[in-house]
């Protein structure tokens, strides 16, 4: 490799490492201690369709706390968390929480709709795609869950079963207690760190 190309590659890797370590450290923090507002990044907006074919934009939920859960029907750990999120939706929807599932099944609604019925899922689910997954850091591991504050910024990331039900409850309560407009600073929008286990 020539020196300029080596240097460019080195810079790119260094930048990636810095980005990775920044979000990794924040993401691995327990939910009860969500990221400080100054460290939160804008959650990438998306347009995805729900089970009824209606378009859903993340930006529709500005002013709400959003629990955004990437999952799939073939994912055992996802099946542990889904009942937790259904309970959170029941408890806290009136206080401003919206749980939004992003299904990542390759087979699409054919696989997902029967599961929604079987689980009696009470929150909205949209069908994910590679582009959205890329915007959110690749989402290689499922479940991957993003807690988004009322300003539309990512307050916590959980990859796999790295948080308990109580961690989620505490984090949601903390975010619900912060009124919309309370945030002062925001990091620019950008893809989430690509983290894999």
């Amino acid at each position, binding site marked *: 490799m020539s020196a300029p190309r080596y240097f460019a590659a080195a810079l790119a890797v260094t930048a990636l490492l810095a980005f990775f370590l920044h979000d990794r450290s924040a993401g691995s923090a327990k939910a009860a201690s969500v990221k400080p507002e100054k460290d939160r990044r804008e959650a990438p907006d998306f347009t995805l369709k729900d089970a009824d074919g209606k378009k859903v934009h993340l930006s529709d939920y500005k002013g709400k706390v959003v629990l955004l859960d990437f999952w799939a029907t*073939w994912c055992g*750990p996802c099946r542990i968390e889904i009942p937790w999120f259904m309970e959170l939706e029941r408890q806290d929807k009136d206080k401003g929480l919206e749980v939004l599932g992003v299904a990542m099944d390759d087979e699409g609604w054919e696989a997902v709709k029967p599961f929604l019925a079987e689980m009696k899922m009470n929150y909205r689910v949209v069908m994910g795609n590679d582009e959205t997954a890329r915007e959110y850091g690749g989402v290689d591991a499922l479940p991957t869950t993003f807690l988004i504050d009322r300003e539309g910024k990512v307050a916590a990331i959980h990859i796999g079963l790295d948080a308990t039900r109580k961690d989620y409850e505490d984090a949601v309560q903390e975010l619900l207690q912060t009124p919309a407009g309370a945030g002062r600073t925001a990091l620019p929008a950008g893809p989430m760190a690509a983290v894999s286990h």
Partner: protein
Amino acid sequence: MLAALLCLPALWPQSPTNERLTVGQPQKVAGKRNETLHTKIPISILPGYHVNSNTPSDDYLIPLSLTWSALGSLEGGQVTYPKPTLEKYEFAEKALSVYTGNFELAVSFKVAATAAAGPGVAVGKLRYQACNNKACFQPKTVDVTVPYSVQ
């Protein structure tokens, strides 16, 4: 900064893959028309991960599955999967039927009665879905090739 740059080559993996499952090269098989040939396909799972066996414990789990897309001068391609292990994971109430570590898939072919003499390659697709104790990963399909020679 300079020290960090000098360390960079060590940060690049020798192999660009971080696949949780890798398929080794099976031994080349050779035989005459109508003969039955046997080979083994070596598979390796990264430590800390597992793939569902060919007979998973639950309907919703994606099984390990090898199918043949092009057999060339061979027929059959019957796959014998090893005995799975039952492992308990944090996310499942019951033990799951899985493969871990290194194992082999045994495959048998029959050389076609009309096969022309010479080399060829049987091509298959191995589909798998890997997890660790806390997360699962998108199902993947990898190519499997078995070189053969008709004598």
